């Protein structure tokens, strides 16, 4: 079901011309600008595949192209990430049921020379960190190219309907969706070449030169040659083990935000949220805005993890927050129909007899994020496990340069924090990358220092303490 009314968002704006796609032969109305997964979900299709070994039904999970849960056969080609692939008139979409085979009748494509792009700074990722890196590298005098595998810029900002904290220059009081628009405008004003629907497949080095090999629309090879690279690939939602944790209806919090806030698709009718950190709390409020009932939030810790203001807002809506509770099981035939939760004792063991049943059709997991470091790991950057930053992160200096010269990192891929710090890190990394590329004057060092000070101030609050502890372990010099 598509949402038509929302207190903040206007979906008609993003819905393009009506097109017809075919799911298992049946026509479905969709709109240009929608991804396949969103159009199917709006039409009531929640099972996207049956797993290859155990034939278990699977639906969305991350909805940003990182997990494998939404892979389908599109126009005969298997393993297409339907959550980031836009609909096209006449598209034939099928569920995968077993190990997908390439069509036998189709001839292998002719080898095509890839498109070759040269720049001073190549930015991978068009979220808050990547956009700020591109803007600032460009201002510092660099020729910049930016790629992102999603069909739109903005990263996770495009689904944030809440207003930001911080200082005026850090967009305080502005909603995330608006910040994404402002940054896009800024990018447009500069001569930054942008490649959307383009995934970075590998990061290679030839001497000092860097090469990012990308694939556009899953079809065309594009090579990005640069003097320096900023990796701002964000993060991925964590999954947790519980019975039937793969049933369609168990979604990452971000996937639910993508459904309802980016594409205006109602995720379900009744939701149980797992995790009472800021993501879980904000999600509860956003679901309420979209007219979806939140039955409860369960949190394994004895205390609510998120900011008090967010928790208070949720409590005022009458949504119960059950601390020291965990999810045991999802139940349902082909999709979530119920969630079973239980209380935990001090040693994290389930207390028998405390089971509660919630009749929900969606279980939202807001149990944390993990930095997406694949490209950095693959190219040989030194990594370290830092729980305060969300898992494995790369060692870097105060200008966000990793242990591989000329490769920079920013935003959640450098450690889980928030959009404001991602933007500041992006600024530092962008200028740093322009400096190492040899195109920026030394005056830009001052701008880096300014951003470093802003970061310091932003992190000086009680919620920055954990991050600062983590940073001590990975920031050298």
């Amino acid at each position, binding site marked *: 079901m598509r949402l038509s009314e929302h207190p903040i968002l206007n979906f008609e704006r993003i819905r393009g011309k009506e097109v017809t796609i075919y799911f298992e032969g049946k026509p479905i109305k969709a709109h240009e600008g929608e991804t396949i997964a969103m159009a199917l979900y709006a039409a009531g299709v929640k099972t996207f595949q049956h797993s290859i070994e155990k034939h278990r039904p699977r639906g969305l999970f991350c909805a940003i192209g990182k997990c494998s849960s939404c892979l389908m056969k599109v126009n005969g080609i298997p393993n297409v990430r339907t959550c980031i692939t836009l609909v096209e008139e006449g598209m034939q979409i099928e569920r995968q049921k077993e190990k997908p085979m390439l069509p036998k009748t189709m001839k292998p494509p002719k080898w095509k020379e890839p498109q070759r792009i040269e720049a001073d700074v190549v930015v991978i990722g068009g979220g808050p960190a990547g956009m700020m890196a591109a803007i600032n590298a460009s201002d510092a005098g660099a020729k910049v190219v930016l790629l992102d595998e999603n069909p739109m810029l903005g990263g996770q900002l495009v689904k944030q309907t809440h207003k930001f904290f911080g200082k005026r220059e850090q967009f305080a009081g502005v909603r995330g969706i608006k910040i994404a628009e402002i940054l896009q405008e800024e990018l447009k004003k500069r001569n930054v070449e942008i490649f959307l629907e383009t995934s970075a497949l590998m990061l290679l080095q030839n001497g000092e030169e860097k090469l990012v090999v990308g694939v556009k629309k*899953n079809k*065309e090879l594009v090579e990005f040659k640069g003097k320096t690279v900023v990796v701002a690939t964000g993060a991925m939602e964590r999954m947790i083990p519980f019975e039937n944790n793969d049933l369609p209806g168990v979604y990452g919090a971000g996937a639910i935000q993508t459904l309802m806030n980016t594409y205006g698709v109602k995720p379900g009718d009744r939701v149980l949220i797992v995790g009472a950190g800021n993501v879980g709390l904000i999600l509860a409020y956003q679901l309420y805005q979209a007219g979806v009932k939140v039955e409860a939030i369960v949190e394994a810790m004895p205390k609510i993890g998120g900011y008090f203001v967010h928790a208070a807002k949720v409590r005022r809506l009458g949504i119960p927050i059950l601390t020291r509770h965990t999810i045991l099981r999802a139940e349902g035939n082909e999709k979530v129909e119920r969630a079973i939760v239980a209380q935990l004792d001090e040693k994290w063991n389930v207390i028998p007899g405390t089971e509660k049943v919630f009749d929900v059709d969606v279980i939202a997991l807001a149990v944390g994020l993990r930095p997406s470091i694949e490209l950095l790991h*693959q190219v040989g950057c030194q990594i370290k496990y830092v729980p305060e930053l969300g898992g494995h992160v790369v060692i870097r200096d105060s200008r966000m340069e990793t242990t591989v010269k000329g490769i920079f990192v920013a935003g959640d891929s450098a450690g889980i924090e928030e959009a404001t710090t991602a933007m500041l890190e992006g600024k530092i990394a962008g200028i740093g990358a322009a400096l190492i590329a040899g195109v920026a004057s030394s005056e830009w060092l001052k701008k880096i220092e300014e951003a470093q000070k802003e970061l310091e101030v932003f992190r000086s609050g009680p919620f920055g303490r954990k991050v600062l502890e983590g940073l001590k372990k990975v920031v050298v010099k």
Partner: protein
Amino acid sequence: MSEKGEKIICRCNDVTLEEIEALIDQGVTDIETIKRLLRVGMGPCQGRTCIPMIISIIARKTGKKPDEIKLPTTRIPVRPVPAGVLVGEMDEE
């Protein structure tokens, strides 16, 4: 199927918590070997979903600290890509 209640760790290759725990009980406690035996992390998502959970499982079962558990090698391509994009057919002559 809801009665069986499997806890899926690797979605790409349908590997369960039980299977991983059984392997750890046999003494296999490094991700690289678990990966070779159960094919976790070798599907289209390249371990993005399962590896963080496997780190937690190994830590819980062996008492190792997560920072002592080595990540498996990340190989190219880091995203699923049709082979035909990387290696197209050349003209015969």
